[in-house]
C-alpha cells in the first residue's frame, strides 16, 4: 500500500478521544477501545514504511514531563509525537527546579503558561496525573503515576494481543509477579477485563494485594496452578526500587518460585505467549531463554506497538481538542 493510501486510512479512522485526558484505563470503555486499536493498527503499518512523517499534529507542542527516570516510555512518546508532526520538549524535573522545592502544581502552572497542547506525565505519586489534569488547560496523558495506572502500556499490550490472537475476548491472561507495586497490572486488569479477557494474578502473598480478588480476578500464589491453561503469561518487573522492607527474601528465591523459565512456561496452554512491559530483570522474573525466543515472546512486538498505540492516543486527543476549539 502506498504512503498516501495509508495516510488516507489513518485520516478515516481518526476520531476524537472519548475524554479530555487519558489518565486511566477507565477513561475508555468496550465501545471506544476497538476504534482506537483500529487507528493504532494503521499506525503500525505506517511505521513500517521508510518515510514516517505525518502532519496530524503539525504546529502542536507535546511536553514530556518525567519526574521518574524513564528511557523507553519517554522515547516511545517522543517518537510517536514527532511522527505525527508535533514539536516535542522533554523535561525531567528530577534534575531541575523540583529539586529546589518547586511543587508539582507550580511546575504545572509554569508549563501551562507556555501553552503546550499535550502534557505526557510520569510521576512517583499515585494520582499525580489526575491532579495535573485539573490544573492545566491542555490534554494530559498519564505515562505512569506511582503504583496507580499506566494506561498507554495497557493499550499497547491489548494491541499486541489483538494482533497475535485476533480477539482478546475469552483469552485467559496471567499477570505474574509484583502486582502490589505495579501500575501496569492495575491498568491491564481494568482494560483486559473490559474487553472480555479472564485475568489471573499470580505472585507471592506479599506482592499480591489482599483485595485483588475483588478486582474480578482469580488470585494464585502457585505458578503451576495459576498458569494452568492460560493463553498469555504477562510477567511484571520486580520493582526492586519500590520494595519497602522484606517482601521477598531474595531475588534467587523469587526466580525459583515465580520467575518464568522454560519449565514453568510448559504449565501454560501450548502455544501460550509471553509478555513483559520492560525493562526486564533477566534471571529475576524472566529467563533470557524465554524472553528472547521470538516464537513465544511478544516482548519486542510490545515495544513496536507502544509507538503506534501512543500515536493513536496523541492523535485522538489532539483531534478532540481541535473539535472543541472549532
Amino acid at each position, binding site marked *: 500500500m502506498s504512503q498516501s493510501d495509508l495516510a488516507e486510512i489513518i485520516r478515516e479512522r481518526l476520531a476524537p478521544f472519548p475524554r479530555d485526558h487519558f489518565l486511566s484505563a477507565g477513561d475508555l470503555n468496550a465501545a471506544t477501545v476497538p476504534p482506537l486499536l483500529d487507528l493504532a493498527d494503521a499506525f503500525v503499518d505506517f511505521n513500517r514504511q521508510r518515510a514516517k512523517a505525518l502532519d496530524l499534529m503539525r504546529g502542536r507542542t507535546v511536553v514530556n514531563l518525567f519526574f521518574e527516570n524513564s528511557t523507553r516510555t519517554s522515547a516511545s512518546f517522543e517518537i510517536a509525537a514527532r511522527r505525527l508532526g508535533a514539536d516535542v520538549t522533554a523535561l525531567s524535573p528530577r534534575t531541575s527546579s523540583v529539586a529546589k522545592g518547586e*511543587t*508539582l*502544581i507550580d511546575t504545572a502552572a509554569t508549563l501551562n503558561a507556555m501553552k503546550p497542547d499535550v502534557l505526557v506525565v510520569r*510521576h512517583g*505519586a*499515585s*494520582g*499525580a496525573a*489526575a*491532579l495535573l489534569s485539573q490544573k492545566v488547560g491542555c490534554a494530559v496523558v498519564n505515562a505512569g*503515576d*506511582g*503504583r*496507580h*495506572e499506566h494506561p498507554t502500556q495497557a493499550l499497547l499490550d491489548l494491541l499486541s494481543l489483538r494482533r497475535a490472537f485476533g480477539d482478546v475476548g475469552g483469552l485467559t491472561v496471567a499477570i505474574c509477579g509484583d502486582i*502490589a507495586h505495579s*501500575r501496569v497490572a*492495575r491498568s491491564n486488569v481494568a482494560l483486559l477485563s473490559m474487553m472480555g479477557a479472564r485475568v489471573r494474578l499470580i505472585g507471592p502473598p506479599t506482592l499480591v*494485594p*489482599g*483485595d*485483588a480478588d*475483588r*478486582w474480578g480476578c482469580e488470585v494464585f500464589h502457585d505458578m503451576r496452578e495459576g498458569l494452568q491453561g492460560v493463553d498469555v503469561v504477562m510477567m511484571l518487573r520486580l520493582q526492586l526500587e519500590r520494595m*519497602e522492607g522484606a517482601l521477598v527474601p531474595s531475588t534467587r528465591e523469587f526466580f525459583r518460585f515465580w520467575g518464568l523459565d522454560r519449565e514453568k512456561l510448559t504449565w501454560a496452554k501450548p502455544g501460550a505467549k509471553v509478555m513483559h512491559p520492560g525493562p526486564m530483570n533477566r534471571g529475576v522474573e524472566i529467563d533470557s531463554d524465554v524472553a528472547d525466543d521470538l516464537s513465544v515472546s511478544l516482548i519486542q512486538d510490545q515495544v513496536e506497538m507502544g509507538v503506534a498505540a501512543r500515536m493513536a492516543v496523541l492523535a485522538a486527543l489532539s483531534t478532540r481538542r481541535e473539535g472543541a476549539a472549532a
Partner: protein
Amino acid sequence: MSAPDTTALAILNARLLDPATDYDGPGAVLVSDGRIVEVVHGAGAAAPDGVEVVDAGGLCLSPGLIDIRVKTGEPGAEPKETLKSAALSAAAGGVTTIVVQPDTDPAIDDPAMVDFIQRRGAALGLVHVRVAGAATRALDGHRMAEIGLMDEAGALYFTDGDKVIANSRTLQRVMSYAAAFNALIACRPADPWLSEGAVATSGELATRLGLAGAPAIAERIQLERDLALVEQTGARFLVDQISTGDALETLARARARGLEVAASVSVNHLCFNEIDIGDYRTFYRLDPPLRAESDRQALVEAVRDGLIDVITSAHAPAPAEDKRRPFAEAAPGAVGLETLLPAALTLHHAEGLDLLDVLRPLTEGPASLLGLDAGRLAAGAPADLVLFDAGAPVVIEADALCSKSKNSPFDGRRLQGKVRLTVVGGRIVHDGR
C-alpha cells in the same frame, strides 16, 4: 484567662441543653462577673433590672464546646494558623475552650512554653486557650518531658500528638511517672510499622488507587499494648482519635474488665468514610485515615452508647500549597473548629442521636476528663455558653472560614446547625444573630 467582664447578662427564653444534668427543656441563664449565677428551668423567667438581655427565641443554649485537640502553627508555622486565627475560628464555631497540641516548633515540652501559650491565648480575649504538653522532649519518643512542671504550669494533659511513642519502655516510664501527678496521658493507637508510610486505609479502594494503606489492625495492636501498660502502671489514659471498629471492641473489653480509660474520636471520622477520598481528594487525607463505612457506623454507635467520651474537631490547619499535591505527598489533616458543631449535629439529624448525647462528648465529657469547671450549665460554673439553632441549614464555604488555612473536607457540604452567639466568661465573643 481574660479579665472577667463585670457586665451582667441574661439569656432568656432558651431551650437549655445541659448534658451534665441531662436537662433538655425551656429555661434561662443569668450571668454575672464571668460566671453563671443562676440557671432557671422552665419558661417565663424575667431578667433583673439593668442587665443586658438576650432573647434566645427558643434556640438551643448549651455549655460552650471544649475542643481538646487543636493544632495551630504558633509558634513556628504562623502562615498555617496563629493562636488568634484559631481562637477566632473557635469563637465562630461555638467552641469556648481549645486545648492546643504540643507539636509546634519548638514543641511545647517545658513549663515556659506552656506559660507562653497560655499568656498569648489569654491576651487575645477570645476563648480559653489551654495546652497539652509533650510527653517526651521535642516529641522524640525517648526522653521524658517535664510532666510535673508542665502540670503545675497548667498543662491539661500530655501527649506526643500524631507521633506514636513506639518504644514501649519509654511509654511505660511516662505512664508510671505521670501517675504520680495524676496526670492524663493521651496516645494515638497506631502500630508505627504497620502504618508506616500509609496515607489511606488498607482495602480495595486504597489498592485500586495505588495508595499505601494502613490496616485497621494496626490500631488495635497498638491499643492492646497501650491498655496493657495502663493496667500495669495505673496511669490516667486517653485513647486519642480512635477510628476503627476493631479498636472499639478492644476498648469495650477493657472497660468491661473495669479499666478506666477515656477515648476520643474526631468528628471527621463520624461524618466521612474512605470512599470520600474518591478521586484523590487531598482534603480527605487525614491521620488516622478515613476508614470503612462499617467503622464509621461503629464509631457513631460508640458515641451513642457512651463508649466514647470526647468528640474533637482534630483541627489541623494545612495551607493550600501543602494540600494541593499528589495525595501521598499532601499534608494530612483538616481544619474543623468552625464546623465542629454542625458536623457533630449530623449525629442528631442523620443518625438519630439525642441532642444531649451529641453535646455530652463536646462539653461535659472533656470537662470531666480534664478537670475543668466549665462544660455545664450550673451556678458557679464559668459563663462559657453557646446559643445555636440546631436545625438551621448551612452550606459550608471553606473560603469564608476564619482559620488561616481553608482545608475543610466539609467545603460545599450542606449541614444543619448555626452558632448564633458564643459567650466566654460572660462576654459575647461571637455574634451570629
